[in-house]
């Protein structure tokens, strides 16, 4: 069935043309025939069933002709094809069938989580919640996946409200439940806790994607999500720092010989002033909403109180506080910050946050983000393979034990450096250059927004994307942990990521600066590549005995900029604070330059 889009020809009579709107554009979009997507759906169903049968029989009985790996592959392909069908079929009945499918996965998830013990091994002790990870969370994720296209296209009001309520309910239950359980039971967080909290966030995000979040219940949900996230993060931070502060008491301010160390007293005084400043800021800004003001005042006063008590009264706590930061503290803080960030992105009206959200989404709305993510993941996988072969080799015919931390040489390979050198120009070259070329800079800067929020939003969005693209390196190590079935020290990874984040600040800021000074993206990319290569050369200068003929002090100076040395130092477990601050300040410097470059149009 095709519709014509030609305008109706004027009548032969000489009546004046009626210029009331007769919309002849846009062109009708022809719905693709349902046959193709249904074939794809059936193929997907077949593959899923086949894969499930393979997996179940392999687990229940001895390994068969088709191994478990193939079963997973078939199941994964089947799910992808089913998703395609779910998204592209136009019949509402088929869509609702997928809604039921999603509900089925949810039920399976609950059963898998709650049902006792390893299912197929007879004789083992059955414990509840055994299969929560990975099956319960996995089925829950599949349920979310199939619920989204169903919710998007559902037009019937009652069904739609059911779906939205379902998403909201499940999300709230998972998020709140996992956070509470994590606070009560410390072991819960690492593993099931994170997975369930993130799954709950996924459901809530899906819910908020379907409703209007400017007003009404959508806004309230986002607000509560952000409040809960902030509360959890603050609680985790407090739990890490306050018991230690109170336990140490005023003695920490004294030198070993008993007299007051004035530097430490001054630092403590500055900290007290900082918290007092927060409280004063909350008090003085009359224009801010009440909840914000009261939170700032409460935080500031609490900080001042804790610091004063810790400085003046000894023996407030007599038992040494249990270590909280790693891993529970970091996980809670991370989760809280992620919740807060998602909530801010959805419901905040702050210009900077609006701009950052748009910039970050631009990476995922075009192929660029996926290509870069895929490329860096591939590179990290290759370097992981190299690392694994080292580990395997050391356990081979003549075992030579590797000293902890075994991750010391994780990033010490050509591929991550290569990927980094190429990735940074690619993701930063388009930032300002493209806007100048298409003219959208004009529209952006004639809105009531300053240059600083514009640049900071581009910087922060690109920095976040940069960090996300290097996350798989850490995730691969989780797979190693599961395969090895014995723990290894992963904590150097934390210092590595902090150092890496600081290097990211420098690299992204340099790329942003070079994108500001030219309209041509290729020129910006090439100009960014030059400092990156110079950073790489610093490693060779530091490592070489001859030092390329440079005098000694130059060798040391240039060697400070070597980011590869920073990697190996942090992966050995030491956070190189001086180098971290060096790279971060390089980044700040280039950000400052970028702002000034943009401002020159005002007086040029």
């Amino acid at each position, binding site marked *: 069935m095709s519709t014509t889009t030609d305008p109706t020809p004027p009548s032969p009579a000489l009546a004046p043309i009626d*210029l009331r*709107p*007769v*919309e002849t*554009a*846009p062109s009708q979009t022809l719905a693709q025939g349902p046959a193709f997507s249904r074939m794809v759906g059936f193929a997907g169903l077949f593959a899923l069933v086949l894969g499930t049968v393979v997996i179940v029989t392999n687990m229940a009985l001895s390994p068969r002709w088709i191994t478990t790996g193939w079963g997973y592959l078939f199941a994964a392909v089947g799910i992808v094809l089913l998703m395609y069908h779910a998204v592209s079929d136009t019949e509402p009945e088929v869509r609702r069938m997928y809604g039921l499918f999603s509900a089925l996965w949810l039920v399976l998830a609950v059963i898998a989580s709650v049902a006792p013990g390893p299912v197929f091994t007879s004789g083992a002790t059955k414990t509840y919640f055994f299969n929560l990870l990975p099956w319960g969370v996995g089925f829950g994720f599949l349920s979310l996946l199939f619920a989204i296209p169903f919710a998007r296209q559902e037009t019937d009001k009652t069904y739609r409200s059911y779906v939205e309520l379902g998403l909201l309910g499940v999300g709230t239950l998972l998020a709140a439940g996992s956070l509470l359980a994590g606070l009560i039971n410390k072991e819960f967080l690492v593993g099931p806790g994170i997975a369930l909290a993130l799954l709950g966030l996924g459901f809530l995000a899906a819910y908020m994607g379907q409703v*209007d979040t*400017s*007003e009404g219940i959508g*806004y309230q949900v986002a607000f509560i999500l952000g409040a809960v996230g902030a509360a959890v993060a603050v609680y985790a931070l407090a739990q890490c720092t306050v018991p230690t502060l109170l336990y140490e008491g005023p003695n920490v301010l004294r030198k070993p010989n008993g007299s007051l160390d004035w530097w430490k007293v001054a630092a403590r005084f500055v900290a007290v002033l900082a918290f007092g400043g927060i409280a004063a800021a909350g008090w003085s800004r009359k224009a801010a909403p009440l909840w914000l003001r009261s939170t700032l005042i409460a935080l500031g006063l609490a900080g001042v109180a804790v610091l004063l008590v810790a400085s003046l009264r000894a023996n407030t706590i007599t038992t040494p506080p249990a270590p909280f930061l790693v891993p529970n503290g970091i996980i809670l803080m991370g989760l809280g910050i992620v919740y807060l960030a998602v909530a801010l992105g959805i419901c905040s*009206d702050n*210009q900077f946050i*609006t*701009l950052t959200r*748009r910039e970050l989404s*631009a990476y995922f*709305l*075009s192929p660029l983000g996926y290509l870069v993510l895929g490329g860096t993941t591939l590179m990290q996988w290759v370097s992981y393979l190299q690392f694994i072969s080292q580990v395997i080799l050391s356990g081979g015919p003549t075992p030579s034990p590797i000293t902890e931390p075994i991750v010391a040489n994780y990033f010490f390979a050509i591929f991550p450096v290569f990927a980094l050198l190429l990735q940074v120009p690619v993701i930063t070259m388009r930032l300002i250059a493209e806007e100048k070329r*298409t*003219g*959208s800079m*004009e*529209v952006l*800067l*004639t*809105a*009531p*927004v*300053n240059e600083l929020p514009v640049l900071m939003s581009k910087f922060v969005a690109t920095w976040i994307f940069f960090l996300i693209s290097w996350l798989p390196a850490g995730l691969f190590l989780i797979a190693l942990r599961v395969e090895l079935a014995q723990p290894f020290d992963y904590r150097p990874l934390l210092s590595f990521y902090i150092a890496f984040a600081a290097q990211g600040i420098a690299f992204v800021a340099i790329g942003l600066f070079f994108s500001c000074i030219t309209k041509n993206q290729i020129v910006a990319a090439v100009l960014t590549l030059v400092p990156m290569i110079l950073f790489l050369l610093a490693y060779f200068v530091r490592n070489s005995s001859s030092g390329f003929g440079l005098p000694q002090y130059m060798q040391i100076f240039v060697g400070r900029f070597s980011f590869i040395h920073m990697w190996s130092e942090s992966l050995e477990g030491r956070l190189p604070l001086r180098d971290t601050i060096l790279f971060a300040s390089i980044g700040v410097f280039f950000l400052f330059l970028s702002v000034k470059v943009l401002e020159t*149009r*005002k*007086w*040029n």
Partner: protein
Amino acid sequence: MATPAIQVQNLTKNYGAVLAVDDISFEVKVGELVGFLGPNGAGKSTTMRILTTYLPASRGYAWVAGFDVMYQSMEVRQRIGYLPESVPLYPEMRVSEYLSYRARLKGVERSGRTARLDYCMDRCRIREVKGRLLGTLSKGYRQRVGLADALLSDPPVLILDEPTSGLDPIQIEQTLGTIRDLAGKHTVLLSTHILDEVEHSCERVVIINKGQLKFDNTLKSISDREPVLQVEVRGPSADVAKFLQEQPELTSVESRHLESDLTSFEIKTKDRKDQREMLASRLLSKGWSLRKLDLKKVRLFDVYTSVVMPKAEPAAPSVPAPPPPESVPAV
């Protein structure tokens, strides 16, 4: 007298050696709809960029809604809606996403934001493409999305740079209708080089050429100008001219020779009366025949051409060719 919405005083802008805008001054009162006319490269876009605070002027002043564009740039930007000539949109975003992002950026109040977005989309008739990617829209739809974006924060001053370029005739009429409805509550400065649009919609017109302001007046003043009678008479040219000059109702007569016995006259009448019938009867009664009798009103096109294409310079008196050198007779 109320503060004018736009006030430009001795504005000059040069890009290095190129003088784009040369000492222009004009005013736009609150609620007016002013057409900014000029050929390509005249300085229209540059003036608009200066007014929207995107570019600084080299000399001179400009105030929008009472605020100086150089020193109070933020206040100016909070009160304008700008549609640039190449409507730049982010091709990977959808219409509703883009407009909602722009609404947040411009600080549209949260509580009525969705209603305001719906209203702007209805006004610019882009409701039906709400979910489409901006990169897949045709030029007409892109212009309308840009216009909706300019309207979002309900700004008192709208600055539109060629809002109907690239649209088909019906869309032009509809867009101009939308703009006409906006005038009165908003002040609109729209630039174009299609005279038809200006004649149908605007009250005042400002013509700029090569960076200089050439004309700044209402359309009514143009149509109020004295119309001219054009007559073509077949008869002995000197006699006809003398006869016409004797007529008491006519104030000035200019003649132009067309053919051997055909002369064309441009006549202005006393008190601007329409003397066509009287003239026709008198000329015919003298036995001459009348080929053309027309009352020509001054149109915007005439003003525009007279401003943009100055009359050809009178040919310089040709220097007589030097006499050939006299040949010196050989002695």
